[in-house]
C-alpha cells in the first residue's frame, strides 16, 4: 500500500529529500517565469532592433540580444510559456486517452479488445516518432498545435501500458474482489477502486513524460516544426543560433541551459516523487 500524500509525515519526507526539493524548485522557477511573462517581460520579445543585434549579456539585456536585436531574456520567458503549454497538453492528451484505454484493457484481460489495444500500443511504439511528427506537420502544417498532436500521440501508449500493467496487479486484490461480489460493474470498479490506487504511478510517469515532451518540443521546433514566428520557442532559438555560434555563443547557450534546467528539474521532481511514494524506498535505499 503506498503512502498517503496528504499526511504530514509525507510532507516532511518530501522536504528532506534533496533531489525532490531541487527538482520542484527548478520546475517552479520556470513555471513562474512563464506565468510572469503574461504580465511583464523586460522587453517586447517580438520587437526587432537590427542595429542592436548580436549583443552579449549586459545590464540592459541580461541574456544579450539575438540576430534581430530581440532581447533574449524576454524570449526565454515567453518560450517557457510555449514549451510548458505544449508539453502539458500533449501529456494531458496521453493521459486522458491512454489511461482509460489501459484500464479498459486490464478490465477485459485476455479478450480481443485487450489484444487489439496492446497491438496498437506496440505499433505506435514501433513507429519512428520524429518521422511521424514531421509527416503530421507535412499534412497539417507546422505550428504548436500540431506539435501537441504529434507528441500527444506518442504519450498515449505509454500511459495505456502503465495503466494496464498497474491495474492488472490490482484486479486480483481482495478489495476489488469484494466490489465485484457486491455487483459493481467493471467500469465503476476501474473508476472508483483501481484509478485512485494507480494515481501515484501516473503522477510520477506524468512528470517524466512532461520532461520528455519538453525535449520533443525542442527537437521539433529545432527542425522548424514547432511554434511559428513571431512566437518565441526555445528549440527555434537554438536553430537560429547555430550558424552564429562562433560569433555569438550566448544565443546558443541560454536557450540550451533553459531546456536543460527545466528538464532536469522535472526529472528530479519525478524521481523524488517515485521515491516518496514507494514504501520500500523510504526505508533508506
Amino acid at each position, binding site marked *: 500500500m503506498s503512502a498517503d500524500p496528504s499526511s504530514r509525515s509525507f510532507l516532511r519526507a518530501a522536504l528532506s529529500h534533496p533531489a525532490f526539493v531541487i527538482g520542484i524548485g527548478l520546475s517552479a522557477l520556470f513555471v513562474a517565469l512563464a506565468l510572469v511573462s503574461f504580465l511583464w517581460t523586460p522587453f517586447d520579445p517580438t520587437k526587432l532592433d537590427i542595429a542592436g543585434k548580436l549583443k552579449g549579456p549586459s545590464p540592459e539585456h541580461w541574456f544579450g540580444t539575438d540576430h534581430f536585436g530581440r532581447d533574449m531574456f524576454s524570449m526565454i520567458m515567453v518560450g517557457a510559456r510555449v514549451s510548458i503549454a505544449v508539453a502539458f497538453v500533449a501529456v494531458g492528451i496521453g493521459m486522458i486517452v491512454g489511461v482509460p484505454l489501459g484500464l479498459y484493457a486490464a478490465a477485459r484481460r485476455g479478450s480481443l479488445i485487450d489484444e487489439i489495444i496492446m497491438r496498437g500500443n506496440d505499433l505506435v511504439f514501433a513507429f519512428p516518432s520524429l518521422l511521424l511528427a514531421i509527416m503530421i506537420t507535412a499534412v497539417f502544417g*507546422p*505550428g504548436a498545435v500540431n506539435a501537441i498532436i504529434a507528441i500527444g500521440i506518442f504519450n498515449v501508449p505509454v500511459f495505456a501500458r502503465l495503466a494496464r500493467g498497474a491495474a492488472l496487479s490490482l484486479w486480483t486484490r481482495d478489495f476489488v474482489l469484494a466490489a465485484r461480489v457486491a455487483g459493481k460493474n467493471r467500469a465503476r470498479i476501474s473508476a472508483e477502486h483501481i484509478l485512485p490506487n494507480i494515481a501515484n504511478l501516473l503522477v510520477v510517469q506524468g512528470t517524466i513524460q512532461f520532461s520528455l515532451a519538453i525535449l520533443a518540443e525542442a527537437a521539433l521546433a529545432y527542425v522548424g516544426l514547432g511554434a511559428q514566428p513571431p512566437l518565441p520557442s526555445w528549440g527555434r532559438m537554438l536553430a537560429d543560433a547555430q*550558424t552564429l555560434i562562433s560569433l555569438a555563443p550566448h544565443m546558443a547557450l541560454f536557450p540550451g541551459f533553459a531546456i536543460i534546467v527545466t528538464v532536469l528539474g522535472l526529472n528530479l521532481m519525478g524521481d523524488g516523487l517515485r521515491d516518496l511514494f514507494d514504501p520500500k524506498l523510504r526505508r533508506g535505499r
Partner: protein
Amino acid sequence: MTKNPITAAAVSILALGLALGVTPAMAAKMDATIGMQLEPPNLDPTGGAAAAIDEVVYANVFEGLTRFAADGSILPALAESWEISEDGLSYTFKLHTGVKFHDGSDFNADDVKFSLDRARADDSTNAQKALFADIASVDVIDPATVKVTLSKPNGSFLFNMAWGDAVIVAPETAADNAAKPVGTGPFSFTEWVKGDRVELGRYAGYWGTPVKLDKVTFKFISDPTAAFAAMMAGDLDAFPGYPAPENLVQFEADPRFKVIVGSSEGETILAMNNKKAPLDNVKVREAIAHAIDRQAIIDGAMFGYGTPIGTHFAPHNPAYLDLTAQSAYDPEQSKALLAEAGVSDLTLSLKLPPPSYARRGGEIIAAQLREVGINVDITNVEWAQWLDDVFKAKNFDLTIVSHTEPMDIGIYARDDYYFQYGDAGFKAIMADLDKATDPAKRTELMQAAQKKIADDYVNAYLFQLARTGVSNAKLKGIWPNSPTQANDMTAVYWED
C-alpha cells in the same frame, strides 16, 4: 644486382621516401571539392527544373549550341558560328567538328535535331518548353550544319539556347541521363553517391580548351553550420553559393580563404496575391510597399549582402531602371494609404519557403507590417507545400521568394502566374519586346515594363540576391556572378 642487400634496401627506402616526399610538393593540386546547398534530384538538365541539376552539369558535363559567360553574355559553344536570315526566322548554325560524347560516339547535326525536337515534343518533360515554343522546324543540312526555322522572330533565341534546358544530348544515352549523364563537356560523370556527392573526371577526348582540373567533386551540404565547419576544416575547397552570410566576416579575416561577392539573377520579392481582397486594391499594395525598410532586411537577413531593387529586374543589367524611391520606406504614408483604402484591422497570411532570405526576411517584414497596423500570420513551409499551396492553388496572401532565372520579367505577362497580375497593358509591352531586335528599342521597352509593374505595385520588390561564396584563397576561376544556375568549372585552376 647490388652486392650488399642492406645497401639495396636502404637505397630503395631512400628513393621511396624521396618520391613520396617530393612528388606531392612538385605536382599542383588537380582536383577540387565544391560545396552545394541542394542535391539535384537527378542529373538530366532537360528533364527537370531543379537549379541544382544545372549547378552540377552545366558547362561541365553538357553543352548547348550557345553558352553563358561569367558576365552573362552569350558565347558560342557547340555551334562555332551562326547566320541569321534577314527576316529573323532562320538560324543556320555551323557546328564544331571532331566532337565526341563521353561514351565515344560522334556528335553531329543529327544530335542537335534530336535534342531540340525532343525538348519541344508534346510529351516532353522539359521544364522550359517555352524556350522552344517558337521553333517551327529543325533541319540537318550536313553533319556539321543545322538550320532552325522559327515561326516568328524571337530576339532572345540565342539567349534561350544557352539555358541548361537546351543542352545537346545523344539519342543513344538520353533516356539514362538522369542517372548517368553523357554529354560533350570537358568533364565526364564518374559517380553519384546519393545524399553525399557527385564526382566528375576530366574527359580526355574533349574537343575544346583543355580544363585544368582532373577531378571535380560536388558535395551536398544543406545545413549552414555544417557548411561552415566543412570549409573551416578544409573538407571543401569552395562553396560558391554559401548559405550563411553571417559567417563571411570570419572567412574574410582568415588568410586561407577569400570571399567572393557577386551578383545573381535572383530578384527577391514579397509577392502579393493580386486577386485576393484587399490586396486587389493597388493602394493597399502600395501601403505594404512603403511599410518595408529594405535596408533593414538586407542587414538583418542577409548581413548586408544584397542590392535594393525597385522593380523586377537585375541592377547589374544595363537596362535597369532604379525605381526604389517609388516605394521608399515611409510608414506614415503607409498608414495614410491604408486609411484611404478603408482598411483597418487587417490580418494577412505570409507563407515562407525554406531559404533564409525568406525565413529571416519574413520575420523582419512581419514586424515592419505590424508597425503600420497589419497583422501577419507566418507559416513556414517546405518547397513541395509552397508549390502546392502558393504556386498552384494560389492559396496565400503574401509570400517571399527569389526568382533566379535571368531576364524573367516576362512572368508578369503570364495570366495565371501565382501572384495573378495579368494586366493587358503589360502584356502588350512584352509582346512588343518579343518582336523587337534593335537594342535601343529593346532597352526602351524593358524600361517601360519595369515602370509598369512598379507603378502597379504588383509585388514589393525587396533586393537582388547577392551571390556570396567562399573559396580557398589559392583556387582561381570561380564565377563571382550567377548569370545562370551553374558552377562552371571549365576555367578553374589552382594557383601555386
